[in-house]
């Protein structure tokens, strides 16, 4: 009896220490995650504060938890710059162009590849898949683009990357999972494959079109490599390349003789503003992106 009680007590004590241990772990875990969130966000906050400070405040101290004085001078300069605004416009055009073009040809090809009885289907699929393992590389691609007269042509942003095999697989997987009945009844009604694709498959593909469309859109919005290689004409540069020129190449377009000295001194705060301007569009679509991208990652992962 005595032993039994004692055993009961130690068990209770053990549960109690376990609880204390568990809540200590919970607290430590929560603190760690909060610190991680701060480490993630603070650099962005720091840059934003820097973009809002008047120049004399900005040089006085580089450690400001919040802007003690606020001015929009830097943003006025950014939005007043033809170079940057032109980049915005071009980025919007090529992003929309690339999304529409890629979704159409990817979806059409993906739908065709779901037809198991299509002659040569496996060979065609292999033809696509092989390019995931081998490529011509940088220079041969560069020489090809040059010989196709795509240099200094905005189509170079859209046509060569017109299809990604990864996205093709994601879409094919999705279309395969659609119920067959709708398609079959359309076939019986005498509709051809093109009509079925347009009238039945595309309207049902909303989720996958959103996922892949967002993949393409973010990739294109951030694409500086293609313009750097193929667009020498600065008036064709999309925003990402303009940003690279300002942030990485440290282009002293601010230091042009024609620009007043006052703007030179804005250099530091302007860079901060440019960073914020490049992030804001992504922040705006972020809620949608997060949902759809996560889904895309999963489809891709399951497939591979």
């Amino acid at each position, binding site marked *: 009896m005595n032993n039994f009680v004692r055993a009961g007590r130690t068990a209770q004590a053990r549960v109690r220490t376990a609880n204390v241990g568990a809540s200590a*772990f919970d607290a430590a875990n929560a603190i760690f995650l909060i610190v991680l969130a701060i480490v993630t966000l603070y650099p962005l906050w720091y840059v934003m504060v820097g973009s809002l400070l008047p120049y004399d405040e900005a040089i006085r101290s580089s450690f400001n938890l919040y802007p003690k004085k606020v001015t929009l001078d830097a943003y006025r300069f950014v939005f007043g710059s033809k170079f940057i605004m032109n980049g915005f416009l071009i980025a919007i055009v090529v992003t929309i162009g690339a999304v529409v073009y890629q979704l159409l040809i990817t979806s059409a*090809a993906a739908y065709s590849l779901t*037809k198991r009885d299509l002659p040569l289907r496996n060979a065609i699929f292999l033809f696509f898949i092989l390019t995931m393992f081998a490529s011509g*590389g*940088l220079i041969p691609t560069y*020489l090809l683009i040059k010989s196709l007269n795509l240099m200094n042509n905005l189509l170079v942003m859209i046509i060569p990357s017109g299809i990604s*095999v990864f996205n093709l697989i994601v879409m094919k997987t999705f279309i395969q999972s659609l119920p067959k009945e709708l398609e079959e009844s359309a076939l019986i009604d005498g509709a051809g494959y093109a009509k079925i694709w347009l009238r039945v498959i595309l309207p049902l593909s909303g989720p996958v079109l959103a996922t892949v469309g967002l993949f393409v859109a973010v990739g294109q919005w951030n694409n*500086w490599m293609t313009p750097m290689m193929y667009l020498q004409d600065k008036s064709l540069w999309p925003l990402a390349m303009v940003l690279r020129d300002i942030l*990485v190449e440290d282009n002293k377009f601010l230091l042009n003789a024609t620009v007043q000295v006052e703007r030179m001194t804005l250099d530091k705060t302007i860079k901060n503003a440019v960073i914020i301007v490049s992030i804001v569009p992504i922040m705006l679509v972020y809620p949608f992106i997060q949902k759809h991208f996560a889904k895309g990652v*999963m489809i891709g992962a399951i497939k591979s």
Partner: protein
Amino acid sequence: MSVAMRKYGMLYVMLLPAIVTIFVFSYVPMYGIVIAFKEFWITKGIMGSPWVGLANFETVFGLKKFWQVMRNTVEISMLRLLFGFPAPIILALLLNEVRQALFKRTIQTIVYLPHFISWVTISGILFVLLSNDGLVNNLLHAFGSAKIQFLSNNEMFRPLLILSALWKEVGWGTIIFLAAIAGVSPELYEAARVDGANRFKQMLHITLPSIAPVTTMLLILSVGSLMSGGGFDQVFNLYNPMVYESGDIIDTYIFRIGLTEGRYSMATTVGLFLNLINLIMLVTANKIAQKTSGNNIY
């Protein structure tokens, strides 16, 4: 055949744009690889340039710079794998232990965000933070230590690459592991609790083994793409001649000798060599992954 064409013709038409795009922009450049075996003259074109056999390879393999860049690539990729692979798993395990759904979702939303910021912008942020009068150096100064030129310091450059890549991708990397964890049967945890396992033991003996197949698979695939693991965007936007010694990788080297210096044949030779290594590693990894998944997942 004509019946088949009537039935399937449209499907081929719908495949055509994709096939043409892939043929022109993926397969035709593969033909361009022949310039690795030629002395390429831009005026003579790919066809007209004279064959030189393996002379380009001899030149490349004789370059000290080439071997330095190879070593950098291998070492940096290894470091990336060493830190970048386990970090998201640990973070996913920690996130999984959070009981309050709202707190968990908030943290997830925040840590996923940097994935969508391009390396151009992140480089801009790093230049602002790490410059001589930037935040980090002012803090160092305030604590009485000497300022550090982070971006031109060969000892700092690799830690900078690894840390900034972690900052950008660790959150996003958790998605796949969190999904795997969500798929673990709750009955397993219940059984463990009945047996008196605390949460740490549950994590160790149930969660980790349950996500082991996914982890193994991803590890094999990351090892397979070790040499092609990207990094170009990051390195190209962050580096400068002062840190070539520690940070120049094959992809940036090819870009420079090819497009900046115009040595097309040599750049293609290096690219071909890299592609061969990649191909062998990828195919091997895929084979192993297929075998493992055959045994473990299904």
